[in-house]
């Protein structure tokens, strides 16, 4: 392998190379694939993307410099605001519900002993199902008239909403679908719960704390780093939702109600780029998203200092 020769070369000329230099060369050789990849697939494209965002580019003709026009357009395009709002509303629905449901399931699993393994497997199954298949399936699970969800609600005497047809209910419908794939978060929480020392609960019991107080005072603070982790990861993921929505409502499909209520940020970006041939504008949109994610993560990090409990701090 090429790596080998690279790594061993310094040792041939031992006299000139200090051990530090040798470690440097060898270390760089090992990480060189990443450096190359970073330049070709991350840093280079970031520069190109920034450049493209200042142009009018339809891929078919050479880009044309337009200055900050695309960025100005971000602030006047009503659909951009709409798609951003849609993605935020979805994130607000999705993130808390995933955390609460996953925590609930993990707490249950944590109390049933060996059987937990079986249930854990079942809960994780939807997560290995390809998103396109999930979306195809849920288009029917959520069908207002014959879907399982509304049929189930009807059994309870409730009339279910138009999950796939009513603009108000499209985002809750997608959030509901996303809960089906809550499995990985459950497993993560379950692992965190198992690391909570049992003595703490015993001590609390002796102090007369009930289960609810134990949950609030011991369990949640102790697993708060994990909760925080899932909060960040799920927020970033939710803001970039694409495949499920694209499968359900876009492509060749007649989009209907989803054309505005289901127009999520990345869907709009994709359409601008590959359907309306506005690569420049799409690039500007991508940078706006990056900026928003940075700010959100920064805020979450700041706020987390108040509620996330780190051992030893």
């Amino acid at each position: 392998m090429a790596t080998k020769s690279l790594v061993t070369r310094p040792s041939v000329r031992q006299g000139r190379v200090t051990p530090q230099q040798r470690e440097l060369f060898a270390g760089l050789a090992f990480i060189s694939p990443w450096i190359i990849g970073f330049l070709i697939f991350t840093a280079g494209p970031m520069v190109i993307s920034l450049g493209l965002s200042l142009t009018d580019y339809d891929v078919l003709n050479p880009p044309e410099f337009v200055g900050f026009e695309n960025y100005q357009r971000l602030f006047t395009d009503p659909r951009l605001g709409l798609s951003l709002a849609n993605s935020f509303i979805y994130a607000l629905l999705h993130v808390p519900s995933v955390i609460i449901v996953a925590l609930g399931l993990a707490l249950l699993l944590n109390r049933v002993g060996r059987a937990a393994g079986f249930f854990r497997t079942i809960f994780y199954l939807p997560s290995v199902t390809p998103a396109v298949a999930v979306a195809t399936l849920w288009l029917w699970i959520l069908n207002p008239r014959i879907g399982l969800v509304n049929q189930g609600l009807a059994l309870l005497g409730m009339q279910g909403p138009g999950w796939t047809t009513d603009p108000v209910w499209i985002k809750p419908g997608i959030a509901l679908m996303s809960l089906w794939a809550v499995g990985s978060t459950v497993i993560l929480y379950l692992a965190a719960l198992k690391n909570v020392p049992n003595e703490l609960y015993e001590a609390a019991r002796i102090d007369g704390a009930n289960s609810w107080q134990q949950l609030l005072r011991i369990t949640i603070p102790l697993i708060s780093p994990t909760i925080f982790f899932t909060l960040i990861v799920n927020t970033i993921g939710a803001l970039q939702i694409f495949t499920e929505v694209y499968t359900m409502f876009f492509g060749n499909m007649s989009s209907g109600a989803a054309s505005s209520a289901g127009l999520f940020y990345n869907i709009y970006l994709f359409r601008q780029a590959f359907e309306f041939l506005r690569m420049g504008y799409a690039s500007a949109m991508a940078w706006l998203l990056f900026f928003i994610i940075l700010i959100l993560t920064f805020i979450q990090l700041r706020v987390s200092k108040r509620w996330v409990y780190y051992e030893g701090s």
Partner: protein
Amino acid sequence: MINTGNDSVLQAQLREPAPRQPIRVRGTLIKAVFLFLLVLCTILFLAPFIWLVSASLKTRAEVFNNELLPNPVAWQNYIYVWQAAPMLTWLRNSLVVGVLASAAVTVSCSLIAFGFSYFRFRGRDTLFGLVLATMMLPGVVTMIPVFLVWRSLGQINTLTPLWASNLFGSAFYIFMIRQFYLGLPRELFEAARVDGASYFDLWRVIALPLTRTALIVVFIFEFKASWTDLVKPLIYLQNTNLFTLPLGLKSILDQFGQGGEMQWEVVLAASVIVTVPMIIIFFIGQRYFMDGIATTGIKG
């Protein structure tokens, strides 16, 4: 780091608070209630799968009747979809891309992570910080330029863009494998160095075998990610014979579903075909999936 056999610890914990009879009875009762709730949730989680399999075996007239069992059983849906679309070709493409993508990322990340853990040199931690920072970058920022890169290499409408960038590692997996390396005692390597092993040997003979579990986790998660991905195939593939299963399913949905011929039973049969291989792989590699998520928080 990987904890298996935690269940027995859990068992011990559960058995512990049993000195007095009433608590034990109460404990059993609570456990029964929890089990009942879990069974209820299990039914909720499985219901869509059951509906899917059942509906995929129904005739056009009955596909949405919501009966549990299809009657008559329309096996012909599966034969039909197999004939109407090159499912076998798509399956093969998905397998090829999945294996190449996973193998590439496993080997490259293992090498890179070794570079970031064993060696000590100036700027290493800054570079590693950069690795972590790239995880924050939304994929859409680089989507268009990366497309242009592959275009300049003449790789549009080939399977290459779907896996080849994995040869250069992937931030999250580098981070994860590095955690494993940091857990290995340094003396192990120093001893080998004294015996005259090259750096490459350190990685190949010592580091690689000791992190086998982690590498399997990386492999199957990347395989899953590749198997379920729609975006890259959507951008790079135009020739039907190059489609992977998710893109194939989307094209079947467009052709036979809404706005198309409304033969939903065919679409649903295709959905089952796309889903089943991954579920089989999941059952085979279940342990690694569970450990992988529990220890690293991979968003599965």
